[in-house]
């Protein structure tokens, strides 16, 4: 395991700049296939509306994966993420158009732990809603 971020260079309260992750319907189709979650609310607009949703919504795990990507890109090595947890607080609605939706993820170094580990608190928003809450990753730095 070799993160590229050095523990001694990181300070509590340090912000990690926001990144936009676009989501289009094709991404949800790919995620359904790769994950095995074929719930039609994630690809079938007709079905989604019959169960009271405004449109097709992204898999919560797809959104969580974007938060994971944000942390692993910051850390330098995905193997440095030793703990990652989220609460799903709102839906990511993905319209069937050229734009789709955008998940914006930002982070802050919330705490420095022992053994050169840090806690990164994540914020993920889409359409002005907070889509993840209590999102925390523990990262092993060098």
């Amino acid at each position, binding site marked *: 395991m070799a993160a590229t971020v050095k523990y001694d260079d990181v300070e509590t309260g340090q912000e990690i700049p926001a990144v936009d992750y676009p989501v289009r319907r094709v991404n949800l189709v790919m995620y359904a296939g790769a994950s095995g979650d074929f719930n039609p609310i994630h690809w079938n607009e007709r079905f989604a509306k019959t169960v009271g949703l405004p449109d097709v919504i992204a898999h919560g795990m797809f959104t969580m*994966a974007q938060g994971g990507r944000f942390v692993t890109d910051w850390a330098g090595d995905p193997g440095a993420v030793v*703990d990652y947890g989220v609460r799903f607080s709102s839906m990511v609605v993905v319209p069937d158009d050229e734009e789709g939706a955008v998940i914006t993820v930002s982070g802050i170094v919330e705490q420095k732990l022992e053994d050169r580990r840090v806690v990164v608190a994540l914020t993920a928003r889409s359409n002005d809603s907070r889509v993840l809450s209590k999102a925390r990753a523990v990262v092993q730095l060098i």
Partner: protein
Amino acid sequence: MALNRDFVGRASTPSPPYEVSRVKIKEFAAAIGDDNPVYRDAEAARAVGHPDVIAPPTFPIVFSLVGGSILADPDLGLNFAMVVHGEQRFEYQRPIHAGDELVTVSTVTDIRSVGRNELITVRSDVSTVEGEPVCTTYNTIVERGGAG
């Protein structure tokens, strides 16, 4: 209907071994839009100290939900039509890499009411077929209106 609290502590039988393949990791990485080379290039993964390509942090969702038979037991009283994903957590002893053969045991650890909803948490302990612990996942699902 309230969920049956007697299910807290109920565990699944160990899953058949799940063989982690380079192809599946690459497919999963492509699906989440992540082009990190340690997910698709064994040499790049070895260069940072891994034995082979490793899996993204959320990859265990592919194989670790083996508590389904417990959740589907009619005595639990769970209405799947009202279920949404509430919380998810992955705790790693080490990264998962291609070539791992992983066995999962799932245990219901908690059932509680929050407002009108019922929440049930399933912990899944993932280890290699040799018994080396690899990761633990915590999956909380919400039955909307279940406690109402």
